[in-house]
């Protein structure tokens, strides 16, 4: 019987797919959690540095190993998966914004003591830069779709530059505010300001990280179109969230 033949053949070279990287990353994250406890709960900096020394190499090696193992071998599901992942991401931002609204609308006095006026021009420029980067990545994808790989590379690199400029402006603004004595612990509004802009900034970092991970293949010229679409989708999401940050945190 064909079925039995297959079965026997399956036993002959019973090979099960493996990958060490998920295991490595997971235990890297364990040491990260341990490091946090050492630093902030038990105030043992040495042990914290030691655990971080284990955690970071494991996580970085894990991500790098995973990327090189999997890059270009996708089944084309990543775009849809990113859609679901963005739903979860959106809920994180939603919880931050809703807690902010809840606190603000419940407060007897707002703003709480110790507030300062946020700059109004800087966020406008930042908005312009981020929207521009969303347009450039869209145009890059469009060129890739038409088969223009050189053009794609140019607009792709431009997107990375714009993202980096945005991040630089964020850091500049933070350092100014902290210099003026407006820190994350000042009051409830400063807490919201730094945590929400920080959360958004961390997403910009991740987005840039995804673009940089794809950079070697882009420079070689063999671009994975599914990867580009997925990375672009994430980048548009980061852009859209920024509108909420600007309107709710800076201008309200």
């Amino acid at each position, binding site marked *: 019987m*064909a*079925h039995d033949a*297959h*079965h026997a053949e*399956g*036993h002959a070279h*019973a090979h*099960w*797919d*493996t*990958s*060490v990287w*998920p*295991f490595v*990353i*997971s*235990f890297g*994250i*364990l040491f990260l*959690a341990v490091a*946090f*406890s050492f630093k*902030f*709960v*038990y105030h043992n900096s040495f042990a914290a540095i030691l655990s971080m020394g284990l955690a970071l190499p494991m996580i970085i090696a894990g991500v790098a190993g*995973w990327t090189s193992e*999997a890059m270009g071998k996708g*089944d084309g*599901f990543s775009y*849809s*998966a990113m859609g*679901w*992942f963005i739903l*979860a*991401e959106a*809920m*994180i931002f*939603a*919880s*931050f914004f*809703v*807690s902010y609204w*809840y*606190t603000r609308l*419940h*407060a007897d*006095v*707002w*703003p*709480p*003591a110790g507030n300062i006026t946020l700059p109004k021009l800087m966020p406008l420029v930042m908005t312009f830069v981020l929207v521009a980067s969303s347009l450039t990545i869209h145009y890059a994808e469009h060129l890739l779709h038409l088969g223009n790989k050189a053009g794609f590379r140019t607009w792709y690199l431009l997107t990375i530059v714009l993202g980096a400029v945005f991040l630089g402006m964020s850091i500049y603004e933070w350092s100014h505010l902290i210099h003026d004595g407006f820190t*994350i*612990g000042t*009051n*409830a*509004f*400063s*807490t919201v300001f*730094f*945590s929400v802009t920080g959360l958004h900034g961390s997403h910009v970092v991740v987005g840039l990280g995804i673009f940089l991970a794809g950079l070697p293949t882009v420079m070689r010229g063999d671009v994975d179109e599914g990867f580009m679409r997925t990375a672009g989708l994430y980048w548009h999401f980061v852009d859209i969230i920024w509108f909420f940050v600007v309107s709710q945190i800076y201008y309200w």
Partner: protein
Amino acid sequence: MNLKEWIFTTDHKRVGVLYLIGSIVAFAVAGIMALLMRAELSTIGPTITGNPTQYNVWLYAHGAVMILGFQIPALTGFFANYCIPLMIGAKDVAFPRVNALSVWLFYVGIILAVLTFFIPDPPDVMWTGYPPYSTMTTGNTAMYSFTVLILGFASIIGGVNFLTTVAYMRAPGLTLNKLNIFVWCTLGAFVLQLIFVPVLGTAVTLISLDKYLGTNFFDPSKGGDVLTYQNLFWFYSHPAVYVIFLPFIGVVYEIIASHAKNMVFNYKMVVYGGIGGIVLLSGEVWVHHLYVSGMADWLRIGQMVTTLMISVPVGLMMIGLIGTLHKGSIAFTTPMMYALGVVFLFLIGGLTGVPLAVPSLTLAVSDTYYVVGHFHYVMAVAGTFAIFGGIYHWFPKVTGKMYNEFWGKVGFWITFVGVNIVFWIMMDIGVKGMPRRYYDYAHFPQFEDAHQWMTLGAGILAVGFAIAILNWILGAINGKPAGDNPWGSPSLEWSTVSPPPHGNWPTPPSVSEDWHPYGFKKA
């Protein structure tokens, strides 16, 4: 056996088995915590520990580990991993490495939870972690935050993985109306996870930020609001009940249809009315956990209405189960016993929940053992029975061998008697005024007898569970060969060999027009 091919595996079946082993270990650990608490409460005053904080740590570990370490991973980890690709005729999940990442993150979460017993200043914040206590205690709140975050992240990537898998990897001919009820239920649960877990992750992150990095989310003196946490927490943790309920009732559907050899009653009503209704309503009821925390009256009324409304889709799912039993040729196998146990326990749990939805009644029984009893009936025990029944049901598929039917039933009956002693008495003394979470009850000496009965019941149910677990271990080692399809089910997971090889089928299956997972041949 090649150990490396187990630890570093990306195969969905092996990942599933890793989930199963981890969650059974977590179940044992959390169960021992419960037994320690029951032993402590067996007499008034200190019994086995003189330290109330020790009791709080047990309370924390029991709740957090049972929910996050046992029920959710067993249901959305083991059953989903093992069964979904087989049920939809896929060779694996869409992202096998992501799957391996989620199981190892789960183990990391369990390790963190178990470390709780060995570190100085363990977390003592219950499984809820309410501020301001959690931001002021000397206990290690960071440990709690990281455990929740890591397990939460594991379930988010698991959710992304399975939604993509079912969307794109179904066998040819397997249309949406031919999916197993379990697949539908689990998809619903994963959608809920994706929407609500991030909110819980945010909530527990904010506690640690407040406590260790000096932010002011929950500090009223700096303009923060302490009730924000309760809202965020329950915005996840109420739907979490459905994250557990949906897959476990899905497991019960599979068992009852297979062992009654009957078409699922009103398939479309169950899927679109029951599962769909629960998914739509589950996000609109969380405020009923805050009835006594203080809120506007109009909000109480609104939440009472939505809370009562959600019993309608849940009721539809119960009708589906009873209807499937009707005119079926019922075989009282061990899995079927557990499934019928779920129907019974869930009915008690569900009906005792209705008074809790009504604010005027809740205000009277809030924070008493009535709530504990109700919760354990509806979720803890019903869910655990479904998990045990499900493990028995798919045991021949996973191991290729048969468990011992006699000891299976013995284990079931002992557990069944034990849980009813414990949790029925809990509801009874709760209505009479016994407050929950007390380390000592010197002010309520009239309940000492009841507490001793409950401690006895806890011992009984522990014996029952131990018999079941031993039965699996012995069956996996030297059970009789079970054959590929011992239950005679047309569902796809039974169409391959037991245990299935890597890749599941030698040639990918496809299904015909008149095939249905519940299309049992009538005798």
